[in-house]
Structure formats: C-alpha cells, structure tokens
C-alpha cells in the first residue's frame, strides 16, 4: 500500500522506512552560461558516470550497477517517494542554476558524429524501470519426433509461429529442408514483446539446435531492437541437448521464428526426438513509459556545430518517429548536453523535442547526422523526476515535495539511477554542489 497521506508518511518514517544521505558533485569542466550540463559525469559522490558501453548499443543503468544518488535499497512491493532534496553551493560563478533530477534507465554510448546516414541502435532488453510488464505464460507444446538427416550446414526442421499472441504457441513440423529455403511463419506483435523459448527436452542430438528469429522479410523494417534494418538476420544459439532459453524484444511489427539443427560435417544423422517450447510475454502498461526522454551528452568533443535527428519508438510502440532537428551548441566539453544554447530558438530543455503527439520514448532506434563533425555523444534515456533551483551561494535550497511541489511527490523506482543535469549561469568549474536527499516508502 503506497503512502497516500501525511499520516502514512509520518508513520512510515517513524518506522524507519526512510533513507537519507548526502551527495556531492564537483564539476571540473569549463562551461558557459545557459547550456545544460550533465553532472553525472562529474567527480564526487556518487562516482562519475563515463557512459561506458558498446557503441550504439543500449546499456542499462542502475544504482546496483554504477551508483547514482543514494536513496536506499529496493523496497518493492512498497512504493518509494522522494520526500526531500536539498542543494547548496559556495561558488558564485554558476549561480543561479536550474537542476533536473532524473532517473537514467540506460544509454546508447559513443554515437559517432562523423558518420553520415542513419546509424542503427541495438537493444536486446527493455528498460528495467518506467516500463511496467506483466508476464503471461503461453503454455508449451511438444514437437513430435522429427528425424533429420544432415550432412553439412544448417538444416531446418520446423517452423514455429505465435499465431495468437496471448494465447498459445502453434507449432508445425515440416520436413527437413535447407534452412535458407524455409518460408517463415509470421506473427504480428502488437506491443513491446518479449519471447522466451525454453527447450525443456531434446535427446540424442549429435548436432546442435539453433534458433532463427528474423524480421518479416521486409527490407529495412525496424522490427526488433537487436535487428534494426535487418543487418543481422538470425539469433543462433547452440543448445546441445540442455535446457536453454533466449529472448529478444520485438516492437509493433511482424516477426517470424524458425528452428533448425546443425549437422556435423562428418555426415552423422541428427535426430531431435522431442522439443518443448514455452513462451512468455511482457506488455507495457499504458500508464508508464510515457515519460522517458532522450538526453544527448558530449563524451568526445566536436569542433563545429553538428546537426542531427534521432529516430525512436514512441510511448505507444510506434517506430520510425523522429525528433526535431538538433543543432549543437559550440560548447564541446564532456558532459555538455548537446543541444542548442538555451537562449536559442528550438530548444528549451535538456531533452530532445519529440515528434508531435509523442510523450515518451521506448527506445532509440537510430541517429542521423545531417551535418557531420568529429566527436562522440552518448544518448541517455532518462525519466525526469524533479526540478529545483539554486538561487544564491551558501544558502541551501530545500524542497519538501509534499509541501513545495503542489502535493506532487515523485516516485523512485527500485534500483533507480538518480543524477542531475544542470543549467548554470556561468562556469561550473570549481563549483561544488552539496546536498541531501531523503526518501520514504510505504
């Protein structure tokens, strides 16, 4: 039962369902006025976040992975709220400043600003926060014995379709044939979709089982996070007679499934006697994933004013959405949010302007630099949690959200990675921001 009134909150805090801790950020970069700057990259406590990960690949972010402002450990099924936040500073150069506290669910690192054309992103897992899921078991079906003789290469034995998402798997065995020659069985997936196949039994396979998950043979379709633009066709995983599983994430699209065996090159006969498959799915709650935003952060300096657009899937699972054009400011130090100067037209937020009608981002799918440059950015996927201002030096700003935010008390999800983005009035270098953060849950 979540805290729903002041009495609940007082009781929860008296029962110890609260955590308070200090944080400190000491940016070292020379910044200008009115340009948003990501404090997650700055030294202090929590430790800096350097946006390390495989280029163009979604990298999850969580307190348990890389800190963030401390708000206590996981409390589910209780609901954790941000009770109070304070901030103070002793250096006048950057004051007054605006701050946004965010929960970074993940990021896409090292996007190359020198590459023209659309750069696709790879994502195999959904955000672990601000993304509600419910799991339904589809059931399992047994594939009857299907002897397969193979000599070399990859030989298909069956096609499988999810003909009725939300109900059951329909499997159809077919005669052995060359994998490449099989006709895919398609299934339309209406929502963010997670499938897991569990090979619960397989006997006497002297080869190895492989699984192919492909798009709907529509060139250029962006069906799955991990196969954007169809550059890669298969998920191939050796099972070798043991129970294994894999998963992928499909968006609103049509996908197909094939299962096959790899024969040994010495001409052995490969026999699969039984195969049990089970699929589960997760769907997105309409009430969540509406608020995730894109925040581009400089991680290697550009030299000019690169111009770019970002392709994404929106809150409802609609792919191929595009942000408005973004013209970078000329501030190039690491940590700069790579958007126009806040005094310029077109941009007034550290987050990219989404396509008309969109309220959030499920995934970033690609980036297109129409004016290339040098350098790298990382694209953070963040949930804006709270905002506040620091008006003057030395005097702390304290925000008690029950009282100072119109009764709006931000929710903090389990394992949240909290950090700050700042809009300073001048040079942040040498400024040290301190503060306390307190959560309460019930």
């Amino acid at each position, binding site marked *: 039962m979540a805290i729903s009134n002041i009495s609940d909150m007082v009781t929860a805090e*008296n029962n110890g369902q609260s955590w308070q801790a200090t944080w400190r950020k000491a940016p070292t970069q020379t910044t200008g006025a009115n340009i948003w700057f990501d404090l997650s990259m700055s030294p202090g406590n929590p430790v800096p976040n350097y946006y390390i990960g495989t280029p163009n690949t979604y990298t999850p972010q969580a307190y348990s992975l890389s800190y963030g402002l401390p708000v206590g450990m996981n409390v589910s099924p209780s609901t954790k709220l941000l009770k109070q936040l304070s901030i103070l500073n002793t250096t006048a150069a950057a004051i007054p400043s605006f701050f946004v506290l965010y929960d970074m669910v993940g990021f896409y690192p090292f996007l190359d600003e020198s590459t023209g054309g659309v750069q696709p992103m790879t994502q195999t897992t959904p955000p672990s926060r601000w993304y509600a899921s419910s799991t339904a078991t589809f059931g399992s079906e047994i594939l009857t014995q299907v002897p397969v003789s193979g000599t070399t290469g990859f030989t298909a034995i069956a096609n499988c379709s999810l003909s009725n998402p939300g109900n059951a798997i329909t499997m159809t065995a077919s005669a052995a044939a060359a994998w490449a020659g099989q006709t895919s069985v398609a299934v339309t997936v209406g929502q963010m979709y997670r499938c897991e196949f569990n090979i619960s039994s397989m006997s006497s396979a002297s080869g190895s089982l492989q699984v192919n998950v492909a798009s709907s043979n529509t060139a250029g379709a962006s069906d799955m996070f991990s196969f954007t633009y169809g550059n890669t066709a298969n998920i191939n995983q050796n099972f070798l007679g043991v129970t294994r599983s894999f998963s992928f994430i499909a968006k609103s699209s049509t996908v197909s499934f094939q299962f096959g065996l790899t024969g040994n090159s010495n001409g052995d006969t490969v026999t699969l006697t039984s195969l049990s498959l089970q699929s589960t799915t997760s769907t997105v709650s309409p009430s969540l994933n509406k608020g995730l935003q894109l925040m581009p952060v400089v991680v290697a300096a550009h030299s000019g004013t690169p111009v770019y657009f970002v392709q994404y899937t929106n809150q409802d699972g609609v792919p191929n959405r595009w942000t408005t054009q973004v013209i970078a400011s000329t501030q190039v130090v690491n940590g700069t949010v790579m958007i126009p100067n806040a005094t310029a037209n077109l941009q007034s937020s550290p987050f990219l302007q989404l396509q008309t009608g969109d309220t959030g981002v499920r995934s970033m799918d690609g980036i297109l630099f129409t004016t290339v440059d040098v350098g790298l950015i990382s694209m953070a996927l963040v949930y804006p949690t709270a905002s506040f201002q620091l008006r003057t030096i030395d005097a702390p700003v304290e925000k008690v959200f029950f009282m100072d935010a119109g009764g709006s008390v931000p929710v903090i999800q389990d394992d949240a990675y909290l950090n700050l983005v700042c809009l300073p009035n001048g040079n942040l270098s040498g400024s040290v921001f301190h503060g306390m953060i307190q959560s309460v849950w019930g």
Partner: protein
Amino acid sequence: MAIQSMDQMISAMSAGQRWRADWNKNALPTTAQAAGQWYDLFGGAGNPGAATIYGTGTNLVMQSMFDYSPTTGAGILHGGDVSPSVKQILNASVYSAAVTTAPAVLMLVDVLAYVPITTTTTTTLQTIISSNTFTASSSTGLLLTYTNDFGGAGGPIWACQFTTTTTLPTGLSLNTTYYAVRQSATTAKVSTTYANAKAGTFIAFTDAGTGTHTMTLRPPRYTNGAGVQAFLVPSTVMGAATPNLTLTYTNATTSGNAGTASRATPSAPALPIGNTAAPVGSIAYAGTGSGKFGPFMPLQAGDQGVQTPTGVTISTSYISGVLNLVLVKPLLTIPITTVGVAGERDLLNQLPSAPVVQDGACLSWLIYAGAATPVNSAFFGSLEFVWG
C-alpha cells in the same frame, strides 16, 4: 497521550511541560574536517563535554547509551523522562561564527548503542557479542548470570529479549522486551519496563526455568529496530588501509518481534570502503568516490533498520586503530547556510512534524562538512522540547 493539536501544545507549554537546551559542540580537535565528509561531533569539546566513551568496554561487546550514560558519553539534556507523556522537538537551531564552517548540514541523532572494535587487524568475520546464554537464580529477585559485561562501559541498563531451548524462568516470556539492570560484570536483574528498571523494580524469582536460556540485546529505544541506523567511527586513528567494511545484523520489524537474521551490507554497487588513516570522529567510509557512503552503512534491500548487530568484517587489516559500530536513530537535519547566520528549523511545519524523543535518549550531532573546517571550530544551537 501525545500532543495532537496546537491548543494542547500551548497548554502543555503553559503548564511547564517544556525544556530548552542550548548546546555547543566543537569540531574535532586533532584533524580538520574535509569537505564532503561526515563526522561525529559526539567527541567534540563543548556542552555536553567531549565524549570519550567510544572504544571503552570489552572488545565487540554491545553497550547501550542513555542520557545518563557516564559523563564520558553524555548527550544533550532534553528534560528527563516524561513517559507516559510523549516528548517532541518543537524547533532547533544551529550556527557558527567560525570562518569556513559553512556550508554544512547537521543531523541530530539519538545514540542508542555502540560496539568497540579493537581487533581491526582481523580480516575474518568478527562476531559482535550482542547475546549471551544465562542461568537464573534468586537474589532478592530474579538474577541472571552470564559471561559478558554489557553495562560496564555504557549505561547500566539494556533492552533485551529472551529465548530458551525448553522453558524460561517464570516471569520471563518469549517475544517480549525487558530491561536488564547491571548488578555486576556478569549479573543483572530484570524489569518489565524502562521506568521500572530505573526505579529498581525487578521481576521476582520463582524458578530458574529449564534448558539453556539466551539473552539477546536490542537497542534501548526503538527496540524493534525500526529506523535504527549504523555507522562506524574511529576512537583511535586508523592505520593506512582501505578495507571493505561489512555489517551483519538482524533487521527491524514493525510487526511482531523477531527480525530476520543474517542480513548484511549489500555488495552492490560496492561495499563501504574504509578511509585510509581515518581520523578519530570521522565516519570511516564517508567521502566521495566509489564505496563511499554517508552517514550510515547501507542496509540490505527491504530493511528499515537494525534490530541487533551480529557481526562485522574488515576485509583487509586496518593495521591499527579502534573502530566503533554505533547505532543511532536519526531525528532531524538542519543546514548551516552562512557563517554567523543561524539555521533555524521549525518542526511544526516540517514533515514529519515534531520528532519524538524517547525517555533516556542520548542526543548528539553528526555533521556533513560542506567545506574544509578547521579543528575546534565551534557550533552552537538550541533545541526546544514539549511533552504532553
């Protein structure tokens, strides 16, 4: 019956059910405070005087703290026991006229207990002695005889619960909190309430029970552990090492009495890392960077406090020094904004309002230094209490 309205509060204050305490504490005398670090002002000079109690007592034996603990461990006076009335803090202030003491944040805590850890070169799990088996006998009442001196250094009273393999002595029940009163280093009498313990009203002896009995200590206040936090602070400067620090404990409950044992400081994202040469009075693992937390040791997911500490692990030898595991209940925070300007906290208009101060509370301050702070920098302030 707690005060529940402004009218009741005004009536209580008019009837003299109030107390104002002015306090003064200095920053620690030997090492300047570093920005971004937490410190325990318990050992700072002033009023109350510098506490030197940490580090005393038998190694790893839990000691309970009260407002009448030895003068070597005195807290800020708050008007004495008022039970069955409920005492609350009305307002608080803090200021400093010493340059470079601002900004800072002070946290008022109720010091509940401490455990001296002199064996800081030991790198295996060290069991905190927070329970003992005992035998029962008659000595003008029920007398418990056990091994370790739980009241020899801290207050002579401690909260505890009893378990047994067969039958407890008559007068003692399972899942019930009692207060033991030290009679000697290895004996204590038992009272049903804290007030009875102070009054010397003890449980009578009827029989010794059967089987093996165990006494397990609880914090003397907030006895179920709810909201009780822990930190490590040196009483002798630590050596040059940066060990990982792990606390194991039984967690708090708000329903029923038995917490869950074998809870531990989480290792993700990182265990607290002790500061090298951590000075006396510093929170040993506070600071900036990986493995730094402040001011409290992180608890395992889902836990809302420490009911009983059971062990501590120092991953590599600290070479020298004495640590103390301190249990506290945080009550309020208040920032110092500017040198010479008092920070004032009106707790009637804060959430949650008016923190409760329990009978026997040992009040002290922790400080988060926002700037390098010279030794012996003076902090002043006041606390005002009301009860009804």
